[in-house]
């Protein structure tokens, strides 16, 4: 392996999405030298139509963003979730009367979490990253080859820039090329569903209520945003999606209203419609020599519980803690020891959530009579069992398992 590099650092992160950028900032805040490379050109990923999603950011993730000083840049665009209503529904028959109602006062005084547009998160991360002295952001940098050895890594971009580090972190998303080229196998499954995502403006106040209806085609979620808006995640059978996407706006809105019910009053479409294919993916290993996977590169899940990004941010907090603790005793941040501890810490936790979200989707995305009935009973039952409900809520809020310091709200 040649030692000549154009840019060398302690850590090289490939993929400057939300997960990669958060990790870069976290490590740089602790004083480590970080290179963050993304193949997109400057500003491309904060452009208006790059990503129409909004994410439900659990409290644990909020703690991370607060801990690394990103939250002040985000707060104005964050809409608190005070209530979660989950119900079984049917577009023509309406919402089932048996309701699972989560009220934040069941678990404490703070909201369940916040809804924030992905674009706002990216913008805030970009602003903070440019202030981090030991973080070098390299854009238009498509990493095409990676050489890993016992002492370090060197990666090369399409334009021939050589980046070296002690540890390579792949945050390059679900299709991670770095993961695939390292020979790490994945378990995958494509769902025969896609999500239509758009923003609507509505007449009445949503009062911070997130609603998720289980419709036969898949979950239909309304996530409360700022400025009287909701982010809609409409998961539907794959063969129907094209039809809905092609509908003229007024008819599309009519379809939405039918599902929304009337509780928000008149609605308007205020964004373009985006479609996201849905798949489940879990890497069989999270690490290899001088390599760690984080975020969607390691795991992708069904958005039914809005947890994908939250899992990725928890990877960030765990891996950053291990790296920083090692750096503070002068250790080698890319050593097997660090990597083994990371995998042990995160893989099982993620595995559990992946399994849970997959079965939730299987249970709810259908229209089989008896199943529907028992589902409604089930939801109602959970509603009557405060302890079970509390557990589910705490999990959704990212408060279960051995938590990294940043997730707990402590300093790194």
């Amino acid at each position, binding site marked *: 392996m040649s*030692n000549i590099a154009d840019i*060398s650092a302690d850590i090289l992160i490939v993929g400057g999405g939300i997960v990669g950028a958060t990790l870069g900032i976290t490590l740089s805040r*602790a*004083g*480590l030298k970080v290179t963050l490379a993304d193949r997109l050109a400057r500003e491309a990923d904060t452009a208006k139509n790059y990503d129409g999603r909004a994410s439900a950011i659990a409290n644990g993730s909020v703690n991370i963003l607060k801990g690394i000083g990103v939250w002040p840049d985000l707060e104005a665009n964050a809409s608190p979730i005070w209530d979660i209503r989950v119900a079984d529904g049917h577009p023509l028959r309406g919402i089932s009367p048996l309701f699972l109602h989560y009220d934040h006062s069941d678990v404490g005084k703070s909201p369940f979490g916040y809804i924030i547009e992905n674009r706002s998160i990216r913008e805030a991360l970009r602003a903070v990253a440019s202030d981090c002295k030991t973080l070098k952001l390299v854009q238009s940098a498509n990493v095409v080859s990676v050489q890993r050895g*016992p*002492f*370090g890594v060197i990666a090369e971009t399409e334009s021939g820039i050589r980046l070296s580090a*002690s540890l390579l972190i792949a945050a390059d998303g679900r299709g991670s090329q770095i993961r695939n080229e390292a020979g790490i196998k994945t378990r995958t499954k494509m769902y025969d569903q896609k999500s239509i995502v758009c923003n609507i403006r509505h007449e009445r106040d949503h009062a911070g209520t997130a609603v998720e209806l289980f419709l036969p085609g898949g979950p239909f979620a309304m996530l409360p945003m700022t400025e009287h808006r909701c982010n809609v995640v409409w998961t539907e059978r794959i063969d129907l999606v094209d039809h809905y996407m092609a509908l003229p706006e007024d008819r599309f809105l009519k379809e939405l209203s039918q599902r929304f019910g009337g509780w928000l009053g008149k609605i308007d479409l205020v964004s373009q419609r985006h479609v996201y294919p849905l798949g489940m993916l879990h890497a069989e290993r999270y690490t290899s020599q001088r390599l760690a996977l984080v975020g969607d590169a390691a795991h992708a899940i069904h958005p039914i519980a809005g947890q994908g990004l939250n899992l990725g941010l928890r990877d960030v907090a765990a891996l950053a803690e291990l790296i920083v603790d090692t*750096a*503070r*005793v*002068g*250790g*080698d941040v890319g*050593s*097997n*020891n660090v990597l083994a501890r990371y995998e042990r810490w995160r893989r099982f936790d993620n595995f559990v959530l992946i399994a849970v979200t997959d079965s939730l989707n299987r249970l709810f995305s259908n229209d089989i009579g008896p199943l529907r009935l028992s589902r409604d009973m089930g939801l109602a039952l959970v509603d009557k069992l405060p302890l079970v409900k509390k557990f589910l809520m705490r999990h959704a809020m990212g408060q279960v398992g051995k938590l990294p310091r940043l997730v707990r709200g402590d300093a790194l």
Partner: protein
Amino acid sequence: MTKEILSQFDRTIDAGEIDKFAAMAEEWWDEDGKFKPLHRLNPVRITFLRDHIAAHFSRDPVDIAPLSGLNVLDIGCGGGLIAEPLTRLGANVTGLDASERNIEVARLHANKMGLEIEYKAAAASDLVRCGCKFDVVVNLEVIEHVADVDEFMKDCTSLIKPNGLMILATLNRTAQSYALAIIGAEYLLRWLPRGTHNWRKFIRPSELAGLCRKNALDLAKLCGFRYNPFTSSWSLEERDVAVNYIAVIKR
């Protein structure tokens, strides 16, 4: 394997032996290999070193490079298990070992890791002759191997700058350490071949205090290390100095 040879130099190294050094380096640095207990002990030792050096020189210990700018001498550096972390923490480290092989191994590894460390196959007395002085002298598990303890301590003292610091770790001469020396437990750091460790040369804290007094040094702190064989982990135990202990000594 390191320190027994403090007084016998082997200068028989040629280029053909480099491969052998590489293999030895791998052995030294394999976290799950022969030196596993040492690797386990390392974070505890480095934390101790870092915190006490930082406190002495008014640095923030959780800074990424709290030791930056300090000149540190690591006596009996072996493969560089202490020298490398101290370098990453910002120190300018000179590593000293009597064994030319160890120095070669340490050099090779530092080079691969991209760390700049000055390694010398020499004894403390050689440095005294050239008039070198350091902010910090690190002296871990060496003193119990040297032929003349008084002379060695005198040499070490003159290597510390005025207002500088020495951190010294060694083994206590107790019934407990005797038993462990005989069974050659991991407890005694596995680099020592079983049975050959000379228990009689272990140093009691009171004797260390005497050595300090003789050299006008201030023995500022004593602390023990305890090994838990069940979790194969080490911890600092303020009061338990029955076997391994470490001292902060100020000049």
